């Protein structure tokens, strides 16, 4: 009996020592410098279809306590839920920046990407962003948004599309405006899209799309609006009584 126990304990120890260096040891390049803060340069809060690589790379910068860029600082990335960051770690360049690309996971939702660096004392500094993955229905909604809605609802102009947002008396809500849109129920949102703003005593500048978009289209559009809301939209669940 005792012999068996001893063997078991030894083998467990052996496993532990075998795994030890692999799990906990330092990986990636050795840091040549240390910063005091991590800031985003670009690439946070992007929207893309599930499984795809984001259009824009994610760029982060390591700064020292005075806000100056630190070259040669080691930054590693963590992404949850099947998203991958390529490369997962690296040293900042001469401008203090590190550029990585992010591929989203196969399930629709929000993916947290965390960048980690260490200061001189070895304390970890983290910075976090969210990237949004769209499933089939939400992606369809996105296409419809680009075609029908974004001309007025997106206040930003692009080279190919001049925004009509500022020409309207009642300023349309951007679809990312979760603070407002999250409080509009599915039924109300459907009504506004189907019957126009006038149906809910809102501005008639929002025309009715019920004759142009089908039921499935409108559902897709709603799924997209809910998916990109910031702060995120949460299902209300059943509300039995409210005071």
């Amino acid at each position, binding site marked *: 009996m005792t012999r068996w126990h001893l063997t078991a304990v030894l083998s467990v120890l052996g496993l532990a020592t075998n795994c030890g260096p692999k799990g906990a040891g330092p990986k990636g390049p050795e840091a040549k410098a240390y910063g005091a803060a991590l800031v985003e340069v670009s690439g946070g809060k992007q929207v893309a279809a599930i499984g795809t690589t984001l259009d824009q790379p994610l760029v982060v910068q390591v700064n020292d306590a005075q806000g100056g860029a630190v070259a040669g600082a080691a930054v590693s990335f963590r992404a949850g839920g099947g998203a991958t960051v390529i490369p997962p770690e690296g040293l900042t360049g001469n401008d203090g920046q590190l550029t990585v690309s992010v591929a989203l*996971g*196969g399930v*629709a939702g929000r993916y947290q990407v965390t960048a980690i660096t260490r200061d001189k004392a070895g304390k970890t500094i983290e910075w976090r962003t969210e990237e949004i993955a769209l499933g089939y229905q939400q*992606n369809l909604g996105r*296409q419809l948004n680009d075609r029908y809605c974004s001309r007025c609802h997106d206040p930003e102009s692009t080279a190919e599309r001049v925004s*009509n947002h500022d*020409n309207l008396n009642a300023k349309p809500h951007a679809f990312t405006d979760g603070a407002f849109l999250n409080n509009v129920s599915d039924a109300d949102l459907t009504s506004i899209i189907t019957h126009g703003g006038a149906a809910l005593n809102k501005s008639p500048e929002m*025309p009715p799309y019920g004759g*142009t978009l089908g039921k499935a289209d409108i559902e897709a559009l709603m799924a997209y609006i809910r998916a990109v809301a910031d702060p995120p939209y949460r*299902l209300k669940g059943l509300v039995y009584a409210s005071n």
Partner: protein
Amino acid sequence: MDLRRKVAAAWAFLFGDSARAFGTLSLVLVACLAVVPAKDHFREWSRYQTRYLRLIRQRGDAATLQRRFQPGLQQTWLPELGVVDRCTTCHVAMKETSLADVSTQPFRPHPAIPHSLNEFGCVMCHRGQGAATTVEEAHSSTKAWEQPVLPARYFEASCGQCHQNSLTGTPQLNLGRKLLARYGCVSCHALRTAGAARMMPTNEPPPLTHVARKTTREWIYAWLKNPQAYSVSATMPDFKLSDADARDISAFLIDQSTPYQQPDASKSSSAAADAQEGASVYGESFCASCHAVQNAAGLMVGGDVGPELTRIGSKVKPEWLGTWLREPKLYAPHTAMPRYRFSEKQLGLLAGFLEAKTDSDLLANVHLDAATKEQIAHGKALVNERGCASCHELNGIKKPDNFAPDLSVAGSRSLAKIVFAPGVPHTLPDYLAAKIRQPSAFGSALKMPQYNLTPVQVDALVTGLLAQTERAEAIPAVLRVAGTPVLKYDPAGKAGKLMQDMQCFSCHAINGRGGDMAPDLTWEGSAVQRAWLLTFLKNPNTLRPALIRRMPRFNLTDAEAQTLTDYILTAYQTPAFDADSLDSASFTAEDRERGRQLFYSKYACQSCHIVDAQNDKGYVGPTLTEIGAKGTPAWTFHYLKNPQLLRPGNIEPNQSMSDADARALTAFLMAQKKAPAQEAAKK
């Protein structure tokens, strides 16, 4: 000794007498019989089912979920599709939308899609081994079963098995198919979608039969060495030619070139032309609707129908440019470039402007000696070997048939038949992506050239190829959604010739043929008034202020504009309504006032259109200040009733207007025009 005694004792204990032996054998038999139920009990899928039952026990709707749960092995069998799926054995909650918040697999419900899971099963879209009952075998490729689950980034490929048309919900697949045609993939590779004709290239590579007239051997050499150095947006791939090979091919191309009939090019003095004026001819002619130029910031400004013009002055010979601008079809009979009918002055200015777009670095290091016979012969051999004639027309070389492997079922290629390059994961999508990204990694003898593609384009191309499966070939024809057919519509007569000349179809579609850059003109004859069309053709003004690409001015003569106007008004009439059914004279001032109120209040048209240039600001749709002089009343009325009926795909929402509202609005809109006296005074 010791051991032997122990064995003997054990034997005596188990089989010492007949009763003991019988008992022992019975126990062994029971144990043997227990193996099967025990194995069944410890199956992977039954563990998942137990875990699912534990999961739903905590939920509010546990009773309903439990009632709908079906224990045991589940199977979807769709013989006509060749689908045998047991996926729902573990993925038990596919249809339980109330579990939307569950994030652990395999218990997530399926997200919303336009198809029923019962009708199509799982492997149609996800691939993998539907009949397998273990996680490993169902999802990954094993020795016996080599079809793994399709990674999420290529999902749209599955839609493409049935849908040969371009769906709103599959942007990646649509892009992939467009790129297969645009980058000339299908010039070398045959690609047929099931039940359809071979995919045709859309890139229109220039013929090289008269290339020596167009450009120099030095430019050809530099271009062959690195097409992207000349034009960042070039679709021509890099063939990774050695200096000697590029030298010999350029020698051959110049040698095979024949003269073509160039009209007497008494070229105007372009060198002295004013750059400012040249730029304004370029602008007025809206060259940028089709051609791009890289600006100082490195951004491309302009369309991608024609080639990029950033360094055009370093490429073309001045006498060729003059002829080309005058008569493009003389050099390239199938070009999309319109004949502009420029005046001699305009020609000189434009040619001068374009010739000044040079890049001194491009040809700085190119020094070629006169070509020898051997070099020319070697060049010809190389041209044959590299399949140049698959895309370009050449003298003395025929377009090769099936130059590269057929890609019609590229998405079903057996892994066993693929030679993987080192470092490439052993899956079909990874192989396709790696091959497109860098063909030379698969061996230097490979003929496929190096393309300059972004990661998004590579993903799209892989998606397009993965849609070409054997399953797609075997699908019942009723399930197939055919692609939009490209119709061979050719207007006849004088007007037809004019339309060919101006390349109307490069931008406008008529009767199913043509581009989508500008409005569909199939029913244009019912839409517009004669006087307006005549003026517009002679001098197109801007209809939509927010648009960057616009209709160019073709410098038509009065007679040409007349011919075209007559043809459009006669031939392009819609059968949906009678053009004379509504007369502007029947509108009263009351109608107009009611229309005005509807325009500004009920329908808030001013949010997208401008009627009063002082106060209205909307610029999503066309400006309507002159609509009364442009549109016909009948068209306006019917368009208001249903914008998509007359212009399919139009983004103007269908407001389900009543006849009375539409009539009042028409009355208001038809009054939107300059008073004739005012117009006369202006002239």
